[in-house]
């Protein structure tokens, strides 16, 4: 089947979802990111790869952290960067997504980084754009957040280089989480043998086992002997509905505390995609504790996004 993310030579043209990408491409991104980590530690934190290119961050849904790291990444590649918070501008005047994209293409944008609350928005744009334009999905609805999945893999690889010998637990609101979906696809593609999800039944999608994960509803059982603990953000709006009794109740059952973390391997790492709800899904003592790699995740996110953007920009058909 044709993969819309790859060009005719099998090179990555758009990054829309980790699902369907071969392991070789994921490894290429992670290896390239490894080379970019050094750039951020130098006197001049820039390389000239995307000089003269224009990257447009179009955020139809707010996200300060993701937008900022994409912006820093593009700037460290020497691209010109435009940030558009469309939720507050043309969309409210009735312009369609594709009109917005057409207008920016007319301004000679070379790459779109797209965040949208609707699943499939980035795919729609990728199908629509001119052949030389590249699209990066920065999160679409409940579907995918591939650069988050990749930076999580990069972080895991840094601390636990042998991916083929890991037990990983993803904890929290898997049902509404594009991050969880991208993480699960990335982990299984990279050959992690045991991926667990731990969540109440109301926060798990139907048939989640089909993604190749083991399901636990009890933290104490699910955390036993894991190497990596990946927390998910509990969206505040979920609390008001019928899915959960209360934030306090959730924390009691599924919040990560030092005591529960002690069930994992002693050298287990704790990850969170941010922004954190302290005292809801994660206790402050854990978030700021020795095993937390939450801030390194943010740092690595820049190198990973630099890798993605430079690989895409270099995959124009000759």
């Amino acid at each position, binding site marked *: 089947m044709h993969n819309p993310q790859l060009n005719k030579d099998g090179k990555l043209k758009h990054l829309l979802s980790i699902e369907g990408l071969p392991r070789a491409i994921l490894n*290429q991104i992670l*290896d390239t990111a490894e*080379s970019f980590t050094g750039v951020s530690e130098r006197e001049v934190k820039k*390389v000239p790869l995307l000089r003269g290119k224009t990257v447009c961050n179009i955020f139809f849904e707010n996200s300060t952290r993701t937008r900022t790291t994409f912006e820093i990444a593009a700037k460290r590649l020497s691209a010109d960067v435009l940030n558009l918070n469309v939720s507050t501008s043309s969309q409210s005047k009735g312009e369609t997504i594709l009109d917005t994209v057409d207008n920016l293409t007319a301004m000679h944008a070379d790459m779109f980084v797209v965040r949208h609350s609707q699943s499939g928005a980035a795919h729609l744009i990728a199908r629509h754009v001119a052949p030389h334009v590249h699209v990066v999905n920065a999160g679409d609805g409940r579907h995918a957040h591939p650069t988050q999945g990749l930076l999580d893999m990069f972080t895991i690889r840094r601390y636990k280089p042998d991916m083929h010998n890991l037990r990983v637990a993803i904890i929290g609101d898997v049902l509404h989480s594009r991050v969880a979906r991208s993480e699960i696809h990335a982990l299984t593609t990279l050959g992690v043998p045991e991926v667990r999800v731990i969540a109440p039944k109301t926060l798990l999608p139907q048939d989640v086992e089909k993604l190749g994960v083991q399901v636990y509803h009890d933290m104490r059982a699910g955390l036993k002997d894991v190497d990596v603990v990946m927390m998910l953000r509990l969206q505040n709006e979920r609390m008001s509905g019928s899915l959960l009794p209360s934030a306090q109740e959730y924390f009691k059952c599924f919040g990560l505390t030092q005591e529960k973390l002690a069930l994992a391997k002693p050298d287990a790492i704790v990850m969170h995609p941010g922004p954190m709800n302290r005292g809801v899904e994660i206790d402050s003592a854990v978030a700021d504790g020795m095993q937390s790699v939450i801030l390194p995740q943010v740092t690595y996110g820049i190198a990973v996004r630099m890798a993605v953007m*430079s690989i895409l*920009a*270099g995959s124009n058909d*000759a």
Partner: protein
Amino acid sequence: MTTPLPEAEQLLTRLAEQLRPVITPATALVGIHSGGVWIMQRLLKLLDVPLAHGTLDVSFYRDDFNQRGLKPTTRPSQIPFEVEARHIILIDDVFYTGRTIRAALNELFDYGRPANISLAVLVNRGGRELPIAPQFSACELPLPADKNLQLLQHEDGRFYLRLDDQA
């Protein structure tokens, strides 16, 4: 080819002897991936003086990125010393167009402002396209553009040169 290729191991010894008189405590060796790094590591042993050294992968500075994109594999550049005011000897295996060296110079300057930079190569094959030339070269071997000269390693680590027709 009628004339046989030079022995890479002999060239390496010759290059070390050329460099020995110019080495000072302020000298740093920087090898360009991948052949230049191999040579640098051997030079460090041959010269047998403790020298600051580093490696460059110039992929992020190449001038053909728009045509060819990124190589599938890049390695991190590592310059673990202060570049400022340093005497740097850049090391590569084969000098050809000079474009790799231009990229390496640009990258080095993003680490700081060295006192001077010179270039040492095993083979200068001619064909430069930029006003850049090696100060130290163990061998001059003019080759037509349709030939590709590569430095390779035997299993025991000894170097040899291979000449192929350009794909």
